């Protein structure tokens, strides 16, 4: 029992709002922040689309891998779509949370009864939703303008690859947010990671005979596996159902690793303020 403001006595307790509802509320909050800010919208949805349109206008020839001539777009559209999803998940989790910590929003959240898992879960789901939109936009454009074909029997493999890859990059985004010194440095870190990774991961154009160290680097990092698993579902030489178990397993390992690092090192207090306070008091 506790005595409330009006002097009335109320029973302490009462039902908590459900975790799912809280995560949903958090996701909607993160979505709002995304859509009302042109910078992330451009870098996560606009830029990959521009690349697809450029590729589609430059690489217009057909390729025959033994199943008759297929437009080149059939090979690079899924790779670019996987890159779009990875990029959207990494940036929208990592950069957004790093900024929200810098501005004290995470501290504010931590001072409320909102469970941290519901808040971070909402951020992950929000970024996955944005990744899904980005991927769908790529395929709509690819199918309508560049003759990309979709095999119905391999759609389940495409969906699972998308989910595993996106969530794994969201997990890496949590780790990025945990280690980024500030919101301002987070975009540089995120792009410094994802753009070079894209070049060693056969996302844009498959490299012809890359040096061993680049090939191995690409094999170790998760993006090539995302691109491969996802592209397999659209590759004419891959038979249905098109599952790529090993690629999925490596992505899961990266995603879980990122989430564990975040679990250990994520913190809610603004770091800039701490530094200033330490200086003031010194």
């Amino acid at each position: 029992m506790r005595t409330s403001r009006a002097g009335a006595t109320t029973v302490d307790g009462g039902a908590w709002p459900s975790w799912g509802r809280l995560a949903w509320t958090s996701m909607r909050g993160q979505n709002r922040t995304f859509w009302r800010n042109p910078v992330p919208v451009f870098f996560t949805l606009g830029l990959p689309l521009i690349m697809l349109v450029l590729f589609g206008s430059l690489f217009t020839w057909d390729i025959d891998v033994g199943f008759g001539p297929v437009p080149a777009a059939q090979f690079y559209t899924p790779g670019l779509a996987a890159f779009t999803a990875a990029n959207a998940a990494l940036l929208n989790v990592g950069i957004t949370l790093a900024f929200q910590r810098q501005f004290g929003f995470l501290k504010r959240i931590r001072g409320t009864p909102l469970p941290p898992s519901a808040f971070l879960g909402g951020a992950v789901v929000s970024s996955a939703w944005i990744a899904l939109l980005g991927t769908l936009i790529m395929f709509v454009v690819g199918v309508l303008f560049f003759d990309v074909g979709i095999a119905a029997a391999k759609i389940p493999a495409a969906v699972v690859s998308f989910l595993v890859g996106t969530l794994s990059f969201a997990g890496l985004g949590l780790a990025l947010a945990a280690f980024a010194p500030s919101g301002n440095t987070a975009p540089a870190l995120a792009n410094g990671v994802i753009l070079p990774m894209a070049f060693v991961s056969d996302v844009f154009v498959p490299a012809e005979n890359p040096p061993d160290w680049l090939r191995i680097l690409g094999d170790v990092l998760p993006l090539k596996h995302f691109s491969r698993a996802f592209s397999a579902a659209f590759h004419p030489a891959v038979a249905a159902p098109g599952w790529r178990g090993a690629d999925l397993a490596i992505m899961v390992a990266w995603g879980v690793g990122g989430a564990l690092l975040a679990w250990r090192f994520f913190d809610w207090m603004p770091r800039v303020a701490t530094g200033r306070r330490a200086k003031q008091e010194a």
Partner: protein
Amino acid sequence: MSDSSPTTPAVAVRGLIKSYGPVQAVRGISFEVASGEVFALLGPNGAGKSTTVEILEGHRSADSGDVSVLGFDPAVAGREFRDRVGIVLQEATIDTSDVTVAEALDSFGAAYRHPRDRDEVIEMVGLTGKQNVRLKTLSGGQQRRVDMALGLIGDPDLIFLDEPTTGFDPEARRAAWEMVKDLRSLGRTIILTTHYMEEAEYLADRVAVLMGGRIVACAAPSQLLGSEKSTVRFRLPDGACSADLPALVAAAVEVSEGVAALSTERPTALLAELAGWAVARGIELAELTVNPPGLEDAYLQLIGTGGELDDAD
């Protein structure tokens, strides 16, 4: 698990110590705050106010010492604790926010078991009509009211106000003070930090003065005043020296750069003698003022003392 009956203090702190690396921010402080009390932590920047409050809020853990807030140890307390405290932060969190006032309050309110009505809170903080305005387009003073609203939306028993009026113009400060008085009259316990002594004097039942991570005084504002002496000042008339003044005045006067100043517990008697002396000689005393006992003097004296005690700061 928790107990907020009137006999238990809302907050009890004993021997609290906190360092950031080599910097000792809080050096062993103890105090209690009664349920329903308004308690102010007063001190200059870097005195340890914010660190202390952040430990009470559960944002930081103490290096050592015992802390109890509403019966919880905030360092390990979960959502039961956070459901009952409201935190009004000084950080400029919402300067860049693209959400509206109503959206912010709805999403924060959703986390509590018994949130206050959103529009009621908006009215309490004086933002009626601003429901659908984005936070970043509000004025600085309006944004601080949103800060206040976010701290109140969960209908807390204990409210932390971290420098609630820093950067306010006098009118906005007065409005914020009235809001705090209203909260107090509703029986809420309030802990506020401030570096304005008049704010502590006006709002707080008790004030702890922090300096260099230590409490150098803790009492009701009226008791902090120390000496109850008023100060009388006036410019010495041309050609007069202190020996020419009436006996009661001459006994206590100090003259500096032509201005006579004296402290007295009997300002009325002293002024009667001084005025009689001046009128009898046809002199108009220039710059004559009487200042009541002030918390400001007491505060400056206290933090002066603390500063001397403290070598590392």
